[in-house]
């Protein structure tokens, strides 16, 4: 082989008392897709940040194409042909897509920005890699999947020879993720090296050439994907096998029989949540939910599938009381919801930094939200309660007083789940529960959701991972353009059928507004 594109040699990085990276070495060849995996808090983001000049290592160094380089800032990294797509996007919300892509390396003509050239460059890059974006759209108005594309275009435009992707698929729909990996392979074919951080093992096995596994800041395994298995990777990551096959590891055929959760038996409780002929308009007055009706019984998990932007978000907002319905009703225990944030509905939002947490507040304060009652509040009590949750849900944090922003992404997600699952509500609404969460934690979270079902709660689950929906739900609803276009017992929810329904191509079974769901 020729000189490696990048070599990280003996990287050690300490944050106060936390040893985030401990003597980590890693080599990426030209044209290689190199996956980095590990539990939440294993040090993946830190390692990538070191490579991209965001953190300076306490020890160790970086070789780029065989020569030692000093990366003191992202500017240095960019100059050395590195590009990074952060999981929390770093786009300029008020700038256009084209501006976002070219900024920092703008085409100029007669001293002024050459906006035509910028637009053209973006359009041709987008076309070449099959990334559909409108160069003139405002970045802040784009859906997440498109933002991801813009991030990638940014790196491509700069002709990054080493592309770092930190959990790129966490917010993508399966279709989008597939497109991304096609592009990754294509780039690799052109000689670009790709560093891919992810929790989704099937992605690694499908798209990666080699894998480096981190645990507790140390390298615990190096594999060629051709010679390894999901199980081996998991063992290397968490030091043991999973109790049961993780949903994201196993093909659908291996799943438990439909309608049977760990509690066993089909759900049969009363309807705790009912939605009748719901109509909702989005902020611009465009109908987002158009005549949706369904019900969720106690002891049942109902999954909602759909392409992003099909009305799921608005539906959840109305059910949780964060948005007013245009018309139609939401019934809880058979009574109409009171209006305003509904206290009988616990809710795990998909937008972690924007809605589910206040990043600047302490972990303890974040764990309290929704449960604050009465007038007096004892800070000590709040911290004790938080410590209990941290213990029970094995959240890794320096202390309950640390701002939640300092937790690794997966641990912040666990904190949100801990808070909502511990609330004693009849109805539980969950969006993207395992987004950015490692396989061990995924397993734990799935078990928790099943427990909630067993306890007789009604669970409404929205996820962009079909496999997750299949693994957990008793029934699946598919939304398309604001309507429920399919209701499938989980046994019938094959990729083909759900996929067809999600894209509006399924005429087999559109549920009646007053059908079985409302009994």
């Amino acid at each position, binding site marked *: 082989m020729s000189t490696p594109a990048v070599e990280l040699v003996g990287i050690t990085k300490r944050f106060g008392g936390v040893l985030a990276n401990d003597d980590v070495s890693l080599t990426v060849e030209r044209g290689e897709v190199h996956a980095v995996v590990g539990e939440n808090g294993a040090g993946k983001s830190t390692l990538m940040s070191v490579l*991209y000049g*965001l953190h300076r290592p306490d020890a160790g160094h970086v070789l780029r194409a065989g020569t030692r380089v000093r990366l003191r*800032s*992202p*500017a*240095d*990294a*960019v*100059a050395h042909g590195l590009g*990074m797509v*952060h999981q929390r996007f*770093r*786009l*300029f*919300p*008020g*700038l256009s897509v084209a*501006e976002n892509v070219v*900024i*920092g390396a*703008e085409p*100029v003509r007669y*001293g*002024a*920005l050459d*906006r035509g050239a910028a637009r053209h460059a973006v359009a041709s890059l987008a076309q070449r890699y099959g990334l559909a974006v409108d160069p003139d759209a405002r970045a802040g108005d784009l859906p997440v999947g498109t933002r991801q594309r813009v991030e990638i275009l*940014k790196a491509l435009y*700069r002709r990054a020879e080493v592309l770092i992707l930190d959990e790129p698929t966490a917010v993508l729909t399966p279709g989008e993720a597939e497109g991304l990996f096609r592009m990754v392979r294509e780039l690799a074919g052109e000689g670009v090296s790709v560093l891919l951080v992810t929790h989704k093992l099937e992605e690694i096995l499908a798209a990666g050439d080699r894998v480096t596994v981190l645990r507790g800041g140390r390298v615990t395994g190096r594999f060629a994907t051709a010679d390894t298995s999901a199980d081996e990777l998991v063992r290397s990551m968490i030091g043991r096998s999973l109790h049961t096959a993780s949903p994201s590891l196993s093909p659908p055929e291996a799943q438990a029989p439909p309608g049977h959760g760990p509690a066993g038996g089909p759900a049969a409780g009363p309807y705790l949540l009912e939605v009748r002929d719901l109509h909702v308009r989005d902020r*611009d*007055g465009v109908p987002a939910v158009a005549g949706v009706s369904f019900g969720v019984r106690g002891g049942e998990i109902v999954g909602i599938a759909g392409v992003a932007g099909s009305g799921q978000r608005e539906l959840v907002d109305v059910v949780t009381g964060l948005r007013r319905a245009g018309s139609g009703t939401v019934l809880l225990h058979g009574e109409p919801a009171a209006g305003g944030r509904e206290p009988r509905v616990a809710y795990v939002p998909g937008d972690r930094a924007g809605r589910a947490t206040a990043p600047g507040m302490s972990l303890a304060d974040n764990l309290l939200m929704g449960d604050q009652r009465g007038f007096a509040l004892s800070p000590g009590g709040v911290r004790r309660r938080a410590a209990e949750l941290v213990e029970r849900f094995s959240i890794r944090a320096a202390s309950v007083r640390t701002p939640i922003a300092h937790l690794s992404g997966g641990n912040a997600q666990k904190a949100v789940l801990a808070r909502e699952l511990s609330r004693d509500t009849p109805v539980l609404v969950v969006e993207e529960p395992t987004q950015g969460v490692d396989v061990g934690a995924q397993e734990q979270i799935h078990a928790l959701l099943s427990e909630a079902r067993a306890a007789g709660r009604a669970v409404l689950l929205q996820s962009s991972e079909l496999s997750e929906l299949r693994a957990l739900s008793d029934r699946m609803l598919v939304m398309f353009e604001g309507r429920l276009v399919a209701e499938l017992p989980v046994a019938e929810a094959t990729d083909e059928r759900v996929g067809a329904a999600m894209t509006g191509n399924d005429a087999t079974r559109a549920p009646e507004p007053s059908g079985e769901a409302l009994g």
Partner: protein
Amino acid sequence: MNAFLAAVLTATAPVVLAALGGLLCSVSGVFNMALEGQLLWGAFTAVLFSHLTGSAWLGVAGAVLCTTVYALLLSVPAVSLRADPVVVAVGTNLLALGLTAFLMRQIFGSGGTFSSPELAGLPTLAALGLDVPMLGPQSPLVPVAFLLVAAAAWWLGRTRSGLRLRGIGQHAEAAESIGLRVSGYRHAAVLGAGALCGLGGAQLALGNVTLFSEGMSAGRGWVAVVAVMLAGARPWLGLGACLLFGAAEALGFRLQGLGLPQQAADAAPYVITLLALVVVAAARRKETTG
């Protein structure tokens, strides 16, 4: 009507220059409340250099230079040392008030007001052969102020550095992660604001009048801050806010002559600005919901 327009333009020019500076800072993500003190410092140094050199233009140059240097007092703590720009501004405003009055006594030997027949004021446009009767007798810095707004609008929208400045203000981390030197741009914005305040101060002390008087910025920097808050990152809107404010003020003077109490005239610009804001906001609201 011409006289009214001329009065508005004269009164507004220093505010426009200061507001433009504040707007650049705001675009770059620094909240600049130090405009009042910098305007005062600009007025003082303009008079000082005009007096020392006998040339109004050297006075202007001196004011621009000195106020840019003075702006380091904001830019270094707020940008490099990450101090709260508002607190620093409170300090530098106070400092400017004390320093100008103190230096005035030390240098000119008199307190209060300094004016002298030898003090060179800025010529009028007419004197330079550029008379525009519509605008009244204005100093050349008045059209310059308005042209600078146009230039800034173009620069922000159409140039490489303008785009980068906008990006930095919107998301500093994002800017950093594509290799932009955030603090460099912010320093430039704050110092540029200093230069503009220097220009504004020079216009105030050598254009609007030809003298220096303790505290003569008299709240113009605060009006500029309000204009920046209203305008966000849009220079034309900032200009509009300044002009609206100036027009309301000039109108207030005229109504005072008809018996309107002084207090009502004082309040008029604020009330009118707020009303305009309410009307615009309500109209926009109706548009989106209706």
